[in-house]
């Protein structure tokens, strides 16, 4: 301290030499701490030693129990000194040491003396220290002083007591709750921070009492809260009250005026808090949003990065639900693309991608191209994902968006970034048929110079499936064969497989493929040679050109229909012997729910509002599972599998959900069961289904689950026959029946004898929407016109009073179970009419397009005009019937 000023030296080594803590060593400092025991205390020296101890702790040094105890006892001696500065350091030190209960007793009396001292600083700090280290028994002794302190004239003392109260409320709520009169008085304090702390504590004391919070908010929103921080709290509590009272009143939202008034507060903190609160209101209307968006827009051009960030982050969230409301800010948002702060720039871009319309896409892409080169991979991934969802929204723009993706694919980047781009291109190829050929070529170019083996093999596999179906498959061969020359063995082997797939699918290419495959016979890697030999044989490459048989295609394209986990277990259990491994002995039942696996939350690259990932393709997994069960194997192609429907309340003994699998002439219910009782083993688990309210259905098969141990989900199935091709609907009641056996928790052994038992499940319904697949079209207008008006059916419906237009639109979408197109499921706020476009595939593989026109008729009544086009009149009629009966 106060040492002669030394000129700042730029040389780091030199500078380090001047550090007062250079060469500091724990043992030596602990020795130094003995000065605390001197009869004649030197406050300045003691202070320095405490600083050194705190420095050590701050640097992550640890004290052993013995050391800590010694230091603590030594430090308590320092209460003898009257030096204010030293006392202050002693307080900090005691807090850092977190003494144990029996040690606390030693300082209690000293601290209590300080708590009643005339010096404000002593009082405030002693309260904080004592409350930090104290326990409940001691608290009752000092409670009287704390209550006094809360209403102390000195704001620092009052704040200390209130903040301590906030912490103590968690451990000793019943004591702190007794202080509410004093706290209430403190809320009226003139000191800004006292008001803030008092309000925070008062709210926490009352937070479970809705009425009290309501009263608190009503009285304070009328009065004047002085402190900006307290005002922010009040805004938060007000939003809570609004949220909880949301459904009780129609008309104007209570307290909205207060929030709106806060937008004109002088503190930016309060303005922002209010704007954010408004944007987060449930079902916020455009009229309510507008003033909040306006202030946020002003913030966008602030000179302070924090303000810009806060505004753009909030607007980004708003854009997810109300893209139209944010479009006014687009110009300001575009200038943020070049913001120094890359977080702000990325948020601005992703917001623009959400709010942009079809016409602005090209301009936006140009701006983003410049921006991409100077941001980190994690931001790039967010942008790539936003572009992918933009492309799915505006399929007509696939050319420029796909170009953009291929350009950035060529630039430098890490694995995760490249994978995100490749995944996006694959999704676009899958969902936008027009984009397929260009997309595949972009991928081909990418593998020409791809350093990631994983991506190369994935792309080669994908090429093998999609490439042969294109108009000119031969153009991909060069890219694939180049891999055989230039890459490592893994990629070469993948390339050989891909070549074989082309050979199998495209007969005209077959002779040339054989030439290429024969060259691979001389590869220096076993796997590559083996594959080439195998494919040459299966494709008949040794003789004349033969028609490729179904079984060969199945061999090449069919995937392994055995769960890999099961195969792995079986292989582990296999003992090498004369008898060869029989792949058919591997159990095919999937142990875990396929859906649960797929839904495992992907690691988000950043917290920046990443768009939802593409829909998981669980249908394949289900199809495989069902076909592995002989009883269901002849049901034909799986049309649709529903999302799981819960049949039990959360946290019951047995958790059961059901997936409805729709076939042309059958319905299979897959009951996913989980046993949540460790002491039980369930055997012979079946579901008894009563179909008396589903006349058109007749039970044909049921597959019980042999055993259901604790916490390992299993499935049981029940199959019904129904009239072919029609959307039969009905209600089913379910009863879980099983034999329960006690399990000894210590050994995990089940007893031999079991008891039969039943467990009532909730009802299950098969509805019309189960018969419609959500399948999007890339260009609705084209599709609509191509379909023609031959089988068009138009009718009008009154939907009666509805909460809002959006609610009515969603209800109809849910009823029909069709895919909304071109983002028309979002209803702009306050609009009086809306058109929603839906597409889907009806059972029997009939394409259906629907145009819904909604209008408000009177204050709340919604009227709807439904136009259906499909390839089959009866299907168009059926859609009308669904709506008419729904």
């Amino acid at each position, binding site marked *: 301290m106060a040492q002669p000023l030394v000129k700042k030296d730029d040389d780091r080594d030199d500078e380090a030499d001047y550090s007062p803590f250079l060469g500091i060593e724990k043992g030596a400092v602990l020795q130094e701490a003995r000065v605390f025991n001197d009869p004649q205390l030197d*406050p300045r020296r003691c202070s320095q030693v405490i600083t050194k101890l705190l420095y050590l702790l701050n640097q992550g040094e640890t004290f052993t129990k013995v050391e800590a105890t010694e230091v603590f006892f030594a430090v308590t001696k320092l209460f003898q000194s009257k030096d204010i500065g030293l006392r202050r350091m002693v307080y900090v030190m005691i807090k850092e040491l977190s003494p144990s209960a029996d040690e606390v007793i030693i300082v209690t009396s000293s601290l209590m003396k300080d708590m009643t001292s005339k010096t404000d600083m002593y009082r405030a700090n002693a309260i904080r220290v004592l409350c930090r280290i104290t326990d409940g028994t001691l608290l009752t002794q000092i409670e009287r002083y704390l209550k006094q302190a809360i209403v102390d004239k000195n704001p620092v003392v009052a704040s200390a007591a209130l903040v301590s109260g906030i*912490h103590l409320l968690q451990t000793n709520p019943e004591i702190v709750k007794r202080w509410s009169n004093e706290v209430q008085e403190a809320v009226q304090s003139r000191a800004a921070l006292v008001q803030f702390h008092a309000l*925070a504590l008062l709210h926490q004391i009352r937070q479970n009492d809705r009425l009290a919070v309501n009263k608190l908010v009503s009285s304070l929103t009328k009065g004047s809260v002085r402190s900006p*921080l307290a005002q922010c709290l009040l805004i938060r509590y007000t939003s809570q009250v609004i949220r909880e009272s949301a459904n009780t009143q129609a008309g104007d939202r209570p307290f909205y005026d207060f929030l709106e008034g806060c937008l004109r507060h002088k503190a930016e903190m309060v303005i922002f808090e209010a704007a954010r609160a408004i944007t987060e209101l449930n079902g916020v209307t455009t009229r309510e949003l507008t003033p909040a968006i306006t202030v946020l827009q002003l913030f966008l051009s602030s000179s302070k990065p924090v303000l810009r960030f806060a505004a753009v982050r909030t607007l980004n969230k708003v854009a997810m639900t109300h893209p139209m409301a944010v479009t006014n800010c687009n110009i300001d948002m575009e200038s943020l693309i070049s913001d120094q702060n890359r977080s702000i720039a990325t948020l601005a871009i992703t917001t623009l991608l959400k709010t942009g319309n079809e016409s602005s896409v090209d301009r936006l892409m140009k701006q983003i191209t410049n921006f991409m080169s100077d941001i980190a991979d994690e931001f790039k991934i967010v942008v790539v994902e936003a572009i992918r969802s933009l492309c799915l929204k505006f399929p007509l723009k696939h050319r420029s968006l796909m170009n953009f993706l291929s350009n950035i694919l060529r630039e430098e980047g890490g694995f995760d970034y490249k994978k995100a781009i490749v995944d996006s291109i694959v999704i676009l190829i899958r969902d936008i048929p027009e984009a397929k050929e260009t997309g595949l070529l972009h991928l081909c170019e990418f593998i020409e110079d791809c350093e990631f083996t994983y991506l190369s093999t994935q792309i080669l596999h994908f090429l093998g499936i999609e490439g042969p179906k294109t108009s000119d498959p031969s153009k991909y061969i060069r890219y694939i064969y180049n891999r055989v020359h230039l890459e490592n063995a893994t990629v070469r082997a993948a390339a050989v497989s891909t070549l074989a797939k082309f050979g199998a699918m495209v007969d005209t290419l077959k002779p040339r493929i054989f030439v290429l495959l024969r060259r691979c016979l001389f590869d220096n890697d076993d796997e590559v040679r083996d594959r080439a030999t195998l494919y040459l044989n299966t494709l008949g490459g040794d003789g004349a050109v033969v028609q490729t048989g179904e079984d060969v295609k199945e061999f090449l394209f069919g995937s392994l229909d055995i769960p890999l986990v099961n195969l792995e277990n079986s292989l582990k259990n296999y003992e090498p012997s004369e008898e060869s491994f029989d792949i058919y002995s591997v159990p095919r039942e999937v142990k875990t729910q396929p859906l649960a696996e797929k839904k495992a939350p992907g690691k988000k690259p950043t917290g920046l509002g990443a768009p939802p990932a593409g829909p998981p393709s669980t249908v394949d997994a289900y199809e495989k599972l069902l076909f592995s069960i002989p009883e269901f194997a002849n049901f034909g192609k799986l049309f649709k599998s529903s999302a799981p429907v819960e049949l039990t309340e959360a946290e019951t003994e047995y958790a059961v959900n059901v997936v409805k699998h729709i076939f042309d002439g059958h319905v299979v219910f897959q009951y996913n069961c989980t046993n949540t009782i460790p002491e039980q083993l369930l055997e012979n688990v079946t579901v008894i289904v009563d179909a008396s309210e589903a006349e058109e259905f007749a039970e044909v098969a049921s597959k019980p689950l042999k055993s259901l141990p604790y916490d390992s989900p299993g499935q049981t199935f029940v199959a019904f026959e129904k009239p072919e091709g029609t959307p039969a609907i009905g209600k089913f009641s379910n009863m879980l029946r099983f034999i329960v056996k006690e399990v000894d928790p210590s050994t995990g052994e089940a007893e031999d004898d079991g008891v039969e038992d039943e467990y009532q499940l909730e009802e299950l319904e098969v509805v019309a929407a189960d018969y419609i697949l959500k399948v999007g079209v890339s260009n609705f207008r084209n599709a609509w016109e191509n379909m023609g008006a031959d089988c068009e059916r138009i009718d009008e419906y009154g939907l009666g009073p509805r909460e809002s237009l959006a609610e009515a639109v969603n209800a109809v979408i849910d009823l029909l179970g069709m895919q909304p197109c071109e983002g028309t499921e979002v209803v702009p706020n306050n609009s009086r009419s809306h058109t929603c476009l839906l597409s889907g595939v009806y059972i029997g593989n009939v394409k259906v397009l629907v145009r819904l026109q909604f209008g408000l008729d009177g204050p709340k009544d919604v009227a709807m005009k439904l136009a259906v086009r499909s390839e089959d009149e009866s299907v168009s009629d059926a859609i009308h019937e669904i709506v008419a009966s729904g």
Partner: protein
Amino acid sequence: MSMDLDDCLALPGFFSVNGSKSTEDCNDVNEDSCPCIKNILLLDSEGNRVAVKYYSDEWPTNSAKEAFEKALFSKTQKTNARTEAEIAMFENHIIVYKFVQDLHFFVTGAEGENELILVIVLQGFFDAVGLLLRGNVDKKEALENLDLILLCLDEIVDGGVILETDANAIAGKVASHSVDAAAPLSEQTISQALATAREHLARSLLK
């Protein structure tokens, strides 16, 4: 002591009677109810600690803390946070920061926190350190006056709850305890004294 000190620091307030996990941490503060500061960091120009204070047990060990500091430092190092406070999203936290000379100031809050509240805490800390070090804000001064810095941290946030944000008030509380609060002016150079005086004047005018 019934347990290792490091453990005690990691589980502050573990002595509370009903065994509730923490009284110190801001983990006990309902986020919806009260803004919460997760940590305040003061690092040097190489990312080493000058003084840090954690109020959240999201970083249970010293190595977790150091890893966070290192990652945060390398992420923000190249940005220009010298004139205005800057902001970043990092590991699902919001971090506001400001640099001066070879010192880097950081304040961390929850993802959903009002950014402008975090920034007044940062500004309070930043300005208070400026006042306490009499405008000579660099690592060497900070280390030489580490006691003031630590007291300053102690006055800004208590267990995650914002205690005071006004730099003058913070510095005032700390300085009145400072051992050498009455350090003779002769020990300052003339220019330094002038700088301090100018600053005080500017502040009082701005008020």
